[in-house]
């Protein structure tokens, strides 16, 4: 286990011990809730992972890197942001996935655009957001998120 995973485990264990010491009932509730969240998501997580495994075998990351590298940077970034917006991948799969892509040589700008829209914008969640707040709010927030995701990616390309 690497140092960061270990750090998260230690921080959580300490917090959990403190929580247990402070309020035993609340802590049992917390653990039940965490277990429930995990159980609820496991099925969809596994299907997403096996799908990614399949895609990355048929189209290896190096090929993706080469293909993205041949496109004009701005176009690659916009398309990546689009891909991120239509797919819904939980963050703890998204980070290792983007890690794989960056290590295979995909440049940082499209990768960041993909990562940001992946989590912030969702075509899948659009109807739910629409039902809660109406079209104007939903459309404005999601459009601005895509524009700013591309902005973040471009600025990161300059800084990193």
């Amino acid at each position, binding site marked *: 286990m*690497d140092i*960061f995973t270990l750090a*998260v*485990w230690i*921080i*959580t264990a300490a*917090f*959990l011990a403190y929580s247990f010491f402070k309020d035993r009932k609340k802590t049992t*509730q*917390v*653990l*039940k*809730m*965490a277990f*429930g*969240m995990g159980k*609820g*998501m496991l*099925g*969809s*997580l*596994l*299907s*997403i*992972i*096996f799908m990614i*495994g*399949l895609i990355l*075998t*048929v189209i290896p990351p190096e090929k993706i890197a080469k293909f993205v590298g041949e496109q004009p940077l701005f176009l690659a970034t916009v398309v990546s942001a689009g891909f991120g917006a239509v797919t819904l991948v*939980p*963050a*703890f799969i998204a*980070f*290792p996935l*983007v*890690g794989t892509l960056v290590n295979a040589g995909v440049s940082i700008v499209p990768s960041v655009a993909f990562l*940001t829209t992946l*989590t*912030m914008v*969702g075509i899948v*969640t659009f109807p*739910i957001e629409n039902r*809660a*707040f*109406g079209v*104007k*709010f939903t459309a*404005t*927030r999601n459009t*601005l*998120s895509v*524009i*700013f*995701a591309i*902005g*973040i990616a471009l*600025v*990161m390309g300059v800084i*990193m």
Partner: protein
Amino acid sequence: MKVLKKAKDNLFLIFVILAYLVIFIFKPDIGIDSVKNSGYYIKEMLLIMPVIFVLTALLDAWVPKEKILKYLGRESKSKGVVLSFVLGSVSAGPIYAAFPMCVMLYKKGASIRNLVIILSSWAVIKIPMLLNEIKFLGMKFMLVRWVLTVISILIFSWITAKVVKDEDIYNANEQPSGLTLNTDACMGCTLCCKAYPDVFEMENKKAHVKAYDGTLDNDKLAQAITSCPVKAIEYVENKPLSSISKK
């Protein structure tokens, strides 16, 4: 009928299984490689997922949200902005769980700008996730992206508040009466069913309100409502329940 509904809910899973079947029949070596590649992500996920869920649930339980609510109103300035970021980053659940909570906040007077901040930071700035990002993409990457994201959210929440006015926001389901459960938000944790099995039941991985005879056990109901990680259960009655109305 039930089988059909179950299949519809798991469409993606079925699609993936079929894809693997086809590949294993025609190109077994690609199939084996795919499973190996998936194995890497499953290992990474299992190392971090349990602990992230526990940490998220802990933050959700210990950050005093009711106190934060008071500062999110339309007159609130920088304090409301900071607290909206805090609220979004420590809350449990996926982004679709944020919508019903934000509707509740809006009814209680939160400003549009703060709503956008909560929704966006809910999606991108989860504290446990930041640690995960450092692991796979590096400290510098995480910090730069984090700072840029916060700045972006500040700017576009301001723009949204200029573009969208209060009259643009409608609520399709006006104040329901009785006991309601928002299935859009439910993530199937089964806590409500455990707290009050006579009234709540699971169906297709989502909780539902059973037909009940009109009498409710206030203590059990209050426990079910507060235990829901995404605040999907609402109870509206003319005479407020003493145990719930203290908010």
